[in-house]
C-alpha cells in the first residue's frame, strides 16, 4: 500500500515535468502548425545554461529559470523570424526537415562547447525530502512540479488576458483577417515561437535538477512532448496539463507492471501514442 502511495506521488511529480516539457511544444504546434523537432534541443540548451550558472557562479538552479526563459525566448524569436518564417506556408514536411536541421546544429554546437560528458546540477538541498508517514516527497521534484504548473498558469493567462495572447489567437484563427485588423503576422509568429522556446528553456532548467544532462539528451524530450500533446489534445494549456500528468502516471505504473522494467519506458510511450491515435485521434480534450 505504501509502495503504491509512493509511486503515485512520484508519478504525479513526474507528470509535472512532462507538462513543462510539452507546454511550449504544444503552443508552437497548435498556433504555428509546426511540429518542432528542435524542441528537445531547446530544453537541453536551457539545462546547460542552468548548469553553467550553477557551476561558475553558484547561482541556485531555480533562480536561473528566468534567465533560461529570456535566453531561449531570444533564440526562438530570431530563429523563427530569420529562418523558419521562410517555410511557414510550405507543407509540414519542410518544417519538420528544417527544425530537425536546427536540432542537429544545436546538438553539435553543444557537443563542441560542453563535450559529451553527462552533467548534473546538485544544489545542497538535492537529497532532502518531506516525509509524510510512509511516503517521501523529494523537495526538488516538488518544486519542479509547482513551477511547471505555475508556468502553465502563466501561459494560460498570457493567452487569455494580454495583447500578445489576443494577437496569437487571432493569427491562429485567420491569418489574413488578423493582418487586416493591424496585427503584424511575422512578429506574432516569432513571438509565439519565442514563447514556446522560453517554456522549453524553463523545462530544461527544471530537468537539470532531477536528471543528468548531455548534449544528445534532447530527443527523448521531443518524443515525450509529442506524446503528451497527442494524449491531451491540441489547442489548450489545460489539455497539455492533463496530458502531461496522465503520461506521468502511465509511465510510472507501466514500468512497474509485472514483467516490465525501466527499459520499456519508450515502448510504453509509443504504445500509448498508438492507442490514442486509434481510439481518440483528437486527444482527450482536443476539439
Amino acid at each position, binding site marked *: 500500500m505504501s509502495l503504491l502511495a509512493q509511486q503515485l506521488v512520484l508519478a504525479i511529480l513526474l507528470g509535472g515535468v512532462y507538462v513543462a516539457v510539452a507546454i511550449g511544444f504544444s503552443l508552437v504546434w497548435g498556433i504555428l502548425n509546426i511540429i518542432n523537432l528542435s524542441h528537445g534541443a531547446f530544453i537541453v540548451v536551457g539545462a546547460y545554461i542552468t548548469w553553467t550558472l550553477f557551476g561558475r557562479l553558484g547561482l541556485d538552479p531555480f533562480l536561473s529559470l528566468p534567465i533560461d526563459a529570456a535566453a531561449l525566448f531570444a533564440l526562438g524569436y530570431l530563429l523563427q523570424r530569420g529562418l523558419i518564417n521562410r517555410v511557414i506556408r510550405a507543407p509540414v514536411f519542410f518544417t519538420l526537415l528544417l527544425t530537425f536541421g536546427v536540432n542537429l546544429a544545436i546538438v553539435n554546437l553543444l557537443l563542441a562547447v560542453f563535450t559529451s560528458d553527462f552533467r548534473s546540477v546538485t544544489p545542497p538541498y538535492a537529497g532532502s525530502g518531506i516525509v509524510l508517514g510512509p511516503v517521501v516527497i523529494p523537495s526538488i521534484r516538488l518544486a519542479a512540479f509547482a513551477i511547471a504548473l505555475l508556468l502553465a498558469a502563466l501561459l494560460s493567462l498570457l493567452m487569455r*488576458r*494580454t*495583447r500578445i495572447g*489576443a*494577437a496569437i*489567437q*487571432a493569427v*491562429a*484563427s*485567420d491569418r*489574413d*483577417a*488578423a*493582418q*487586416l*485588423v*493591424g*496585427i*503584424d*503576422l511575422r512578429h506574432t509568429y516569432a513571438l509565439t515561437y519565442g514563447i514556446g522556446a522560453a517554456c522549453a528553456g524553463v523545462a530544461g532548467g527544471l530537468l537539470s535538477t532531477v536528471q543528468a544532462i548531455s548534449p544528445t539528451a534532447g530527443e527523448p524530450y521531443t518524443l515525450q512532448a509529442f506524446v503528451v500533446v497527442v494524449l491531451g489534445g491540441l489547442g489548450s494549456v489545460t489539455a497539455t496539463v492533463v496530458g502531461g500528468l496522465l503520461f506521468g502516471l502511465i509511465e510510472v505504473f507501466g514500468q512497474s507492471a509485472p514483467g516490465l522494467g525501466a527499459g520499456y519506458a519508450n515502448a510504453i510511450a509509443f504504445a500509448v501514442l498508438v492507442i490514442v491515435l486509434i481510439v481518440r485521434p483528437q486527444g482527450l480534450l482536443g476539439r
Partner: protein
Amino acid sequence: MSAPLLALSAVTKRFGGVTALDHVSFDLAEGELVGLIGPNGAGKTTLLNCLSRLYRLDGGSIRFSGMDIAKLGRHEVARLGVGRTFQVVRPFRSMTARENVAIGALFGSDRARLPPREAFRVADEVIDLVGLGGRGHLLVDELTVPDRRHLEVARALATRPRLLLLDEVMAGLNPSEVAEALEVVKRIHASGIAILVIEHVMQVIVGICPRVVVLHFGKVLLEGDPSTVLKDPRVVEAYLGERYARRVRGSRGDG
C-alpha cells in the same frame, strides 16, 4: 482643394493572362462615400484586395493619405487607417463576437490600439452601433448569417479606420435587414469615416452614395452621380447585355 484621402492611379492587376484590373484610376476624398458597382467578375473585390494589400499590383499605384501602399505590409495598411470587411465573412471562430470586435480595437489603426479594458469598452459601443447589442457573448458559430455580417462591419469599425471598405455587406439580407444595415452605413459615414462600398443591391447605392464608380471587365466604365450613371446605356448594357439595352432604348423611342 486638399489632396484626396485615396488616390488610385492606373492600378493594374493580372492573374496569368487575365487582366482583372486595367488602369483603374479614381480618387476618394476624406469623409466621402463612394459606391463601387459593376457586374459579376468586373474586378470589384480584386480592387479591394489590392487596396488592403492582399494582392500585389502589377502596375500603377495606390496612395493613401499620401503614402504609397505598395511599399507597406498588410498590417501597416491597416495601421494607416484602412479597414475592411470580407464578402465571405472571416471572423475569428475561436472567439465570441465581443472578443472579435475587441481585437479590432486592440490593434487596428494608430487611432485604435487601445489597452484591453478600453478595447472591450469600445467593442461594446460598436456592437450596439451595428445592431448586435445583447449578442456580444455569443460564439461566432452561434450567430445568424446577418449577424455575422454585422460582426464583420463591427470588427472593421473598431479599428477606427479613416477609410472603410465594405464588400457586399448586404448580400443575402432581406429588405428590412437591408434597411437596418443602410442606417448603420449612414451612421458610420456621419461620424466622418470615408467609405468605399461594393454592393449589388441598387437601392443601397442610389439611397446613400452621392457618387458611384462603375467597373466593367476591370476598367472604369463611368463615374458620377448614381441616378445618372444607372440610366447610362453603357451601364445598362454592362449589367444586362446588349440586346436588353437595345430593347430599353427602343421602348423609350430613342433607339
